[in-house]
């Protein structure tokens, strides 16, 4: 089993690491969080120039034809610096769906994603359906020969900045993925900050007229495509979590070596040493499942779906343990918003809640066995 990264992959990691070191310290990040858009347009442009926005796309669409391995490399580094730019929603989620859909203009849409010109978000959650995304109420109907969409979509990542949405809705009683312009009549958007400093929005569709071309996948194809997108997204935020875990335990080790109480560094206390060892062990175990899931997704292994659930559970549990202990070992400083350590806990909490939380994936894993 060769688990070494290629030179190209190592270079990508170095590049992201360097970018985050120079552009993404705590203060830089705070400024981004406070901005209206909730992300940095300059950073996004740099992502485009560095080619990062092209990572997962096929060569024929102007991409690098990289796969899950490269995405996890990127996300691990993002996780260390708690990067908030909407890479997940715009590149991974929307990109996966568009590239694998039957959209007639997909090359030109992907071109605009790669150039950083457009951000697109997937609208899948709703107020009352929990994680059962296919049981949605948003649906199309025909009135006076006009096809229109009605319903509400929730928690749409980066909604305020998206120029287009891919909406999961019912069409003829079946799941469909429908591409809709953000500016279209009948669509209203409320934007919110999220607990971890990102943004999301609530979309309300009132008789939004659509043409059949905008239905880019339907029926079992739409659901398969959506599931593919979910698996890859879970993989990416899990990689992000691994990066955040790494940073959390390393920052905690550093802090306990520097903080003195009882006339000695608190890292001398064995109970804290063991706690940090636990954090380290959980990070390594999570990394293992991440690599396993990455390789399975990369090779279209039929077990990938189950491994993804296992990974999501491990990420949820380990993220909680590591995030909480990192805060605990920082004492009061841990709950101060001025320290990065609490922001990792927030990101772990958000990551656990997305695409099915720990309990959801325990149950899914059990059912699939």
């Amino acid at each position: 089993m060769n688990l070494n990264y290629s030179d190209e992959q190592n270079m990508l990691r170095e590049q992201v690491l360097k970018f985050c070191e120079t552009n993404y310290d705590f203060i830089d990040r705070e400024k981004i969080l406070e901005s209206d858009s909730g992300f940095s347009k300059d950073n996004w442009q740099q992502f485009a120039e560095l080619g990062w926005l092209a990572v997962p796309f096929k060569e024929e669409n102007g991409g690098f034809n990289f796969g899950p391995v490269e995405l996890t490399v990127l996300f691990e580094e993002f996780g260390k610096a708690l990067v908030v730019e909407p890479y997940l929603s715009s590149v991974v989620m929307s990109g996966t769906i568009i590239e694998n859909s039957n959209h007639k203009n997909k090359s030109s849409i992907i071109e605009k994603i790669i150039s950083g010109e457009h951000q697109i978000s997937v609208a899948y959650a709703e107020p009352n359906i929990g994680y059962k995304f296919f049981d949605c109420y948003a649906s199309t109907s025909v009135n006076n020969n006009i096809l229109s969409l009605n319903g509400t979509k929730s928690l749409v990542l980066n909604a305020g900045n998206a120029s287009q949405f891919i909406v999961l809705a019912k069409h003829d009683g079946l799941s469909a993925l429908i591409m809709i312009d953000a500016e279209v009549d009948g669509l209203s958007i409320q934007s919110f900050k999220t607990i971890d400093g990102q943004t999301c929005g609530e979309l309300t569709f009132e008789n939004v007229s659509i043409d059949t071309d905008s239905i880019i996948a339907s029926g079992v194809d739409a659901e398969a495509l959506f599931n593919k997108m979910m698996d890859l997204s879970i993989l990416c935020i899990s990689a992000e979590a691994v990066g955040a875990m790494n940073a959390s335990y390393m920052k905690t080790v550093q802090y306990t070596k520097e903080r003195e109480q009882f006339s000695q560094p608190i890292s001398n206390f064995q109970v804290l040493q063991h706690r940090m060892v636990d954090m380290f062990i959980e990070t390594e175990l999570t990394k293992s499942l991440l690599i396993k899931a990455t390789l399975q997704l990369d090779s279209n292994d039929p077990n990938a779906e189950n491994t993804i659930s296992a990974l999501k559970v491990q990420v949820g549990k380990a993220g909680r343990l590591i995030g909480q202990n990192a805060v605990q070992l920082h004492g009061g400083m841990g709950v101060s918003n001025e320290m990065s350590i609490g922001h990792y806990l927030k990101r772990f909490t958000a990551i656990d809640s997305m695409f099915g939380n720990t309990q959801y994936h325990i149950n899914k894993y059990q059912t699939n066995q």
Partner: protein
Amino acid sequence: MVGPVIYTFGTQEQKDRFLPDILNFDTWWCQGYSEPGSGSDLASLKTKAVLDGDQYIVNGSKTWTTLAQNADWIFCLVRTETTQKKQEGISFLLIDMNTPGIEVKPIITIDGDHEVNSVFFTDVKVPADQLIGEEGKGWTYAKFLLAHERFGIAGVPVVKVQIDRLKNLTAEYNDADLNRKIAELEIDLEALEFTELRTLAAIAEGGHPGAESSILKIRGTEIQQRLTELYVEAAGQYILPYEGPDGFESNRTPSGPEYASPSVAQYLNYRKTSIYGGSNEIQKNIIAKAILGV
């Protein structure tokens, strides 16, 4: 918190002066124990009080002071003497927050709220009759207060109410996993509650809450934190939108259940409970030393 110290160690004059207002909720007190360099090792505190005629001159800083921004008074541990044994030079002073030379600066916590503060003292003049008990005996009073504080932190009644609330909020989910976790929590709470009653019974017979209150503090805060986790779990993905402790503007409601957003704030906020009042690690050190004798 300060009430028991005043009625146990205060002069008659101090009791008459402070207790009625405390009972009527007319004055609010904050706790000036922790300092930037002295958290778990509280006895290493450095805020200095020097007796000058009939008043103390106080210099130094306190931190993590809960609700200092609203407090009328602060009870402070100060160093009145530099002694060989660090516990010995500590005194317990009551200070009016309106005294010139006191500056309060907010510390924002990870839930975005302003609950704690830094408090700075520059040549603050405190009448000597606001000293509790004897000079240099402050550590004894401080520990006495901490035992009472830990007792309070256990929070059994509040947890009961919050468990019931969670059950009501989630009844319609029929979520077997969630219900099982709630039941487990209730069982732990029963054990804690009866432990508290045993301690109370001992106090009724003339005892004082001692190292046993550390049991209540540890398990009480663990239960509280687990409860906040269950709220978050129940709310699922709807915890994501959060616009700060003041909630959402009135004309905007995020999706999902209404309890979702406050739940995640509470979860983050309650990380404090295993840190304050003496961290849970310190409580275990106390039990190891005072009860197990190791």
